């Protein structure tokens, strides 16, 4: 444990890059790296799991929170609190915030790449690029989706009728395991562009990038609570979310088998909208499909409004 901590945030830097003093240090490095504590991102704040439990990353380098049912509950609460503010913003404003998120991600490219532990530098680069581009692409949807999903209804009578897309509310997302960052950004963006707020159970096998992404969120004008990130075992976190009566929809990526059945069954308790999809890792890199309007349309309600015409 102590051993791992010593490597700290320098974990991917080859020894050749280390300062001479570090190489030479007989009694350890001249300067001890300051390690980041991995936390949950709830309501715009970085918090430890209320349970006090933690998990260890696959490479054994880091601890991260083992979020509990209560953390899931807190996340929903934070999301609920953010809903009216987020949904009430103009599409233009939401678009600016998402674009700002892309800007911040671009600024943290290196860190994001480092956080992706698999596949080497070039794979990490292409995933980070794709993730940033996915955010940019969705930034542009915010003030356009309504024009495409809305309709003026040619009703047979002296009434004016129109239908508009509206957010559903709190959406619980099971982000895909891989690609970790792109899957996270690619599942969150279509949900939040229309004004929904999200509680995301992030990749179980590689949660580290979540924190860096959370820092991007935290510094990008994204209002607290719009995106809430939970690390921990999928089943343990998704079950209370599927049962939660304030969660209005489930977005399940690569959830199958018994877990899928039990989540969908629980979802019926408050008639949640459930979207369950399988996508292999490469599919996420399809920029066109990844930012398709149909992905956004899954998470809107259609509201129809009627009014008489005649003074």
């Amino acid at each position, binding site marked *: 444990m102590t051993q791992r901590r010593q490597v700290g945030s320098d974990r991917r830097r080859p020894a050749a890059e280390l300062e001479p003093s570090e190489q030479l240090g007989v009694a350890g490095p001249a300067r001890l790296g300051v390690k980041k504590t991995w936390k949950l991102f709830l309501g715009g704040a970085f918090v430890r799991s209320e349970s006090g439990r933690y998990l260890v990353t696959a490479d054994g380098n880091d601890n991260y929170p083992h979020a509990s049912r209560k953390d899931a509950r807190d996340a929903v609460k934070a999301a609920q609190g953010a809903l009216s503010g987020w949904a009430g913003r103009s599409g233009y404003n939401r678009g600016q915030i998402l674009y700002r998120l892309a800007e911040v991600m671009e600024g943290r490219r290196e860190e994001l790449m480092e956080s992706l532990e698999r596949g080497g530098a070039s794979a990490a680069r292409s995933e980070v690029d794709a993730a940033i581009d996915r955010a940019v692409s969705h930034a542009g949807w915010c003030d356009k989706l309504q024009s495409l999903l809305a309709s003026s209804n040619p009703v047979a009578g*002296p*009434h004016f009728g129109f239908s508009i897309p509206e957010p559903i509310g709190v959406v619980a997302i099971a982000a895909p395991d891989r690609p970790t960052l792109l899957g996270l950004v690619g599942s969150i963006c279509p949900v939040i562009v229309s004004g929904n707020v999200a509680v995301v159970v992030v990749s179980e096998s590689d949660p580290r990038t979540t924190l860096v992404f959370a820092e991007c969120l935290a510094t990008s004008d994204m209002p607290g609570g719009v995106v809430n990130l939970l690390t921990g075992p999928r089943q343990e976190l998704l079950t209370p979310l599927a049962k939660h009566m304030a969660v209005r929809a489930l977005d399940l990526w690569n959830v199958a088998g018994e877990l899928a059945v039990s989540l969908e069954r629980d979802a019926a308790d408050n008639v949640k909208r459930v979207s369950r999809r399988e996508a292999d890792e490469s599919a996420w890199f399809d920029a066109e499909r990844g930012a398709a309007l149909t992905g956004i349309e899954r998470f809107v309600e259609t509201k129809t409004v009627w009014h*008489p*015409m*005649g*003074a």
Partner: protein
Amino acid sequence: MQSTHGGGSPALSGMLAPLEPSPPVDRIAAEERAQSLAKRSIKKSAKVAGLRLAIQMMDLTTLEGSDSRGKVSALCMKARSPSPGDHGIPSCAAVCVYPNLVPIAKEALAGSSVKVASVATAFPSGLSALSVRLDDTRRAVDAGADEIDMVIDRGAFLSGEHARVADEIAAVKEACGDAHLKVILETGELGSYDNVRRASDLAMYSGADFIKTSTGKIQPAATPPVTLVMLEAIRDFYFATGRRIGMKPAGGIRTAKQALHYLVLVKETLGDAWLHPDLFRLGASTLLNDVLMQLKKEESGAYQGDEYFTKD
């Protein structure tokens, strides 16, 4: 432009109660309601009773420049006895004529229950000086008119001079003495149901005994939704003041079916008290024969030809 329904209360002399802003009227929903009441199926005994009621509520009207002694006398005969030889048919409520013909009508209707109504106040435009209109009214009353049908100054109303309109109505009411005052709003010129409602309220709060849709000289004249809006104004006025104001749709009512539709509106908006000639009149010149034909048809089972009914 001044709001016709929300714009506060004009300071009015002679008003019976403070006049609140009138509620807005939704055109589409009002028309929908009137239309749904038009679908009432009035058959057999209901039809016979309704048509007899319609005759009793009819203000048999002639308001032509060519009206003469002969024409008015004939009309009065028809009003007294709409279907000669058929004693089951009741008399009409009134005969409605120009002021100069009131004495003729009065004479022709002597001894009957049929009232004499006279249009006055520089009918149909109502645009003469107030003194002329008041004089017109007094002359008609002096000549024996039981009822005066006045017109409001629509120009004044539409330009927002509601207080003036109200004061003029109050002045005419005073000039009427014991004669009943029907105030014609000329709804076809008011442009909106909001205005119809506002004008109805102004008229009632200024002393009208009846409110009436039209002169018959302007299209559209009476329509079911306009009548509905006016009946609803009467209903609110009744609950606010306890006074029952009468209603008279006039103009364009030509068929028995239309007449029954108006009765349905009254029955389902104001109820039994208004199903009476004291509180509801139909102003019409050609309606009577169609009503008589329909009654005959109900009695005989055969469709009728118009040559069998007197044309007066």
